[in-house]
């Protein structure tokens, strides 16, 4: 039962943190809990599908199908998050003003809500498929009773979700003036972290070279396996032993998003904006 709880907790935590950041970033959007629930539901269905197709996916691309699929899912999420960051950098201030004014909820308008919902669905799909395969193996082995599996799974789910909820309530205490730029930074670092994470699958598949492994080793200070390490790994992309490839990609994503955000806010563009 503990083994089930631990594995479910780890996977749920990763998805929960991403959901929390998206919920914070969509603050002020009416009906967002419905959108997010839709994303989670789509992710759950997707993860069952992926688990069913796991064998076929694995065999694709000369046995590297799983790595390419994982890298693809992560990079798709990076693309969606990037879209959101750039959009928000242009409209964040308007939104903060709107929220302070007439009521607290605004209609979606042309916000890239779909992008964020896709990010949630992809996160749930990634983590969920692992859980499904694990539970399949566990029930097939006959070593664990169904009750133990359900209790362990529920325990892991609740604990992981609680951390996500705790983070959300912490985030909404940020004054509205700074709130959207704070969430934009969180999303930027999340995108950079996911991009760096995608690199490990491409290196494993032999598609890319890590250039140099273990550029630094801070596992003695904060291990990625500790609970705080895991949280920081998702939130800001903390890596205790990154390869040079991962560091380059992380920094490149941050620089790209900062540059793109400033570009859309350049004086000429602002003059033309309606």
């Amino acid at each position, binding site marked *: 039962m503990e*083994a089930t709880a631990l*594995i479910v907790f780890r996977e749920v935590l990763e998805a929960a943190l991403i959901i929390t950041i998206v919920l914070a970033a969509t603050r002020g959007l009416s009906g967002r809990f419905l959108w997010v629930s839709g994303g989670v539901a789509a992710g759950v269905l997707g993860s069952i599908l992926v688990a069913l197709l*796991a*064998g076929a996916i*694995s065999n694709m691309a000369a*046995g590297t199908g*799983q*790595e390419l699929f994982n890298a693809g899912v992560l990079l798709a999420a990076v693309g969606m998050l990037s879209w959101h960051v750039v959009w928000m950098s242009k409209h964040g201030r308007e939104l903060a003003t709107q929220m302070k004014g007439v009521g607290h909820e605004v209609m979606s308008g042309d916000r890239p809500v779909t992008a964020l919902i896709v990010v949630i669905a992809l996160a749930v799909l990634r983590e969920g*498929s*692992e859980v499904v*395969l*694990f539970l*399949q*193996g*566990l029930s*097939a*082995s006959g070593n664990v009773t169904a009750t133990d599996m359900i209790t362990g799974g529920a325990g892991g789910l609740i604990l992981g979700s609680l951390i996500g909820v705790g983070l959300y309530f912490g985030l909404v205490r940020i004054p509205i003036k700074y709130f959207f730029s704070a969430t934009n930074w969180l999303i930027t670092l999340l995108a950079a972290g996911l991009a760096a994470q995608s690199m*490990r*699958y491409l*290196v*494993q*598949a*032999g*598609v*890319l*070279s890590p*250039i140099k*492994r273990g550029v630094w080793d801070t596992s003695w200070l904060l291990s*990625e*396996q500790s609970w705080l390490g895991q949280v920081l790994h998702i939130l800001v992309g903390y890596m205790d*032993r990154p*390869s*040079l*490839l991962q560091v*380059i*990609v992380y*920094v*490149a994503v941050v*620089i*790209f998003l*900062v*540059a793109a955000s*400033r*570009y859309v806010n*350049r004086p000429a563009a602002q003059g033309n904006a309606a």
Partner: protein
Amino acid sequence: MNFKSVKTLGTVLALGSALALGACGEPADDPNAVEVVITLKDHVFVPPIVEAPANTSLKLVIKNMDETSAEFESHDLDLEKIMKGNTEATLRTGPLKPGTYKFFDEFNEDTAQGQLIVK
């Protein structure tokens, strides 16, 4: 920091990345990679300790001889692969510095633990 300097920095970084990526010596899927076979049976690695030469590209061939799924994982090597029962997988790693690198089956962590000793 104004836009122009961010743009310059971005260009420098992009060029630097391209040069760095191009400069890496070995091809990513080195045909001269040394093969290391790791077998998983009855939720235990057989043998639990395998060896490999240091500073060489490595090709780990994982064989899951069990009926159930396994997740071959290593934090030391930064590897992760879900494997259905009775399947085989090839993972690229190395060149590695001498040392001991642990790996495990996350789905059966209490019994399936192994070490790759690199000399």
